[in-house]
């Protein structure tokens, strides 16, 4: 049986179980819709207070920014950091270790299945927000073409980085502090709270040096036509570098982690 068959079967299983337990998946979707909506409203109010423009963003461009942001967040979210805290603390990771395949494959399938299930709701929300907030949005053709690979890379980087961080649960039971620190950093540095160009310069530099910008903000900036071709290429290179580094770290940390794992709660 090849890896393709494994994926197909896993998809069938996961999809069926998610359709059964869809309520909690949809609850998370509400949060993903609400957060960009709140910041869209706040920044629109700022733009209005300043006569229609904040650092190169009009109200219509803010609307475009946060609606695209919402869709990019949908495409890139993962919940592995919460899941592994539970799995490792309660020892249920042991079952995954018994299988002859790396657990990351199952996590990937779970993640993609949940996105497919919630996609219709997300699209409806996006359409409603487009009608309500009238975004001004005209992406250059080349940027739109490049958006898909950039978005896939963003998801890959985020998935690998968060999967690696999730493994901190092997060494400490206080993962919630790690998670919170990470999510706060992500809120500011990946452009979820405000476009990165509106943040203080030091934070912008940090966002570009760390993986945060490349995980969420970069695809949004690209599709909004705020980058030229050269900047887009630099971004892709940064994504590739973080993906490579992330994969190396993931392998190393996973091997070391499994060795210290003692299945406490099982």
């Amino acid at each position, binding site marked *: 049986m090849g890896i393709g068959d494994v994926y197909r079967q896993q998809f069938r299983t996961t999809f069926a179980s998610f359709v059964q337990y869809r309520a909690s998946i949809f609850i998370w979707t*509400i949060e993903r819709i609400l957060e960009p909506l709140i910041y869209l409203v*706040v920044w629109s109010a700022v733009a209005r207070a300043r006569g229609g423009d904040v650092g190169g963003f009009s109200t219509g461009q803010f609307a475009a920014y946060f609606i695209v942001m919402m869709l990019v967040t949908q495409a890139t979210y993962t919940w592995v950091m919460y899941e592994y805290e539970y799995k490792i603390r309660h020892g249920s990771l042991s079952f995954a270790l018994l299988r002859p395949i790396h657990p990351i494959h199952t996590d990937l399938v779970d993640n993609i299945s949940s996105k497919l299930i919630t996609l219709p709701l997300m699209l409806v929300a996006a359409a409603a927000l487009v009608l309500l907030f009238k975004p001004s949005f005209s992406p250059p053709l080349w940027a739109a073409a490049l958006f898909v690979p950039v978005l896939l890379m963003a998801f890959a980087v985020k998935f690998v980085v968060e999967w690696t961080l999730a493994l901190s649960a092997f060494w400490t039971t206080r993962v919630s502090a790690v998670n919170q620190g990470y999510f706060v950093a992500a809120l500011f540095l990946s452009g979820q*709270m405000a476009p990165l160009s509106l943040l203080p310069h030091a934070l912008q530099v940090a966002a570009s040096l760390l993986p945060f910008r490349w995980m969420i903000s970069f695809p949004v900036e690209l599709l909004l036509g705020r980058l030229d071709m050269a900047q887009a290429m630099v971004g892709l290179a940064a994504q590739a570098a973080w993906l490579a580094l992330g994969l190396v770290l993931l392998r190393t940390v996973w091997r070391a982690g499994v060795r210290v794992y003692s299945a406490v709660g099982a």
Partner: protein
Amino acid sequence: MRFLRLFFVFFRIGAMGELAYRANFFLQLLESAVDLGTALGGLAVVFSYTSTLGGWRPEEVAALIGVFFLVGGALRLVVQPSMEQLIENVREGTLDFMLTKPEDSQVLASIQRVEIWKITDFFLGIAVIIVALIRMGERLGALQVVEFAAALVAGGVIVYSFWIILASLSFWFVRVENILVVFQSVYEAGRWPVTLYPGWLRIGLTFLVPIAFATTVPAQALAGQMTWQTLAEAFALAAALFAASRFLWRAGTRHYSGASA
């Protein structure tokens, strides 16, 4: 003040359980502080581009964030854990034990579990409010402070009643935890003045999920935007929701059969 004495008893029980894990206090304090820092950081970014946001000055929005933490802290301290416990009690039939106690069952159910470390949010919220009040200085009249306190009481009653109404639905439907989770995520929208939101969302946040009265309205009193009409509405809604919660609780406990006990 039987209610306060009862609450104190449950608080002590919660404390006795948690004092064995004192390190959790510092962890919770750290989490609350980071959360607050995030909220104030967002505020700083927004107000670096404007001096007022939809008519709100920075210290007024800071006071709003203080109220948000205060009310949220109180909810997470006692209301939320108690309601989750209640739903569990109804499902497992262990509510029987509570109904047989010689005390009002709604009161008991509402305070039965106290997660004491969540009190950090509560006190950080108060600290932020105090700092914001000092920054407002002489702009602030005594009447406004009274209005603020009154609006806070009304808002607290509204949010409490709303929670217990939702939790009481568990007498008829099995899975209501999800509704509670939805309320928690919608509560996040209360970090900013609801007056900023477009009409449909503002009405939803005022009447459908009444967080506006818990966070924005008290802060409005401090910002000097409070009208007597708003305050009257807040108290009317508080009274109506509280009466409804009382009614639903009575109907629910009558309907309850302790099936699985």
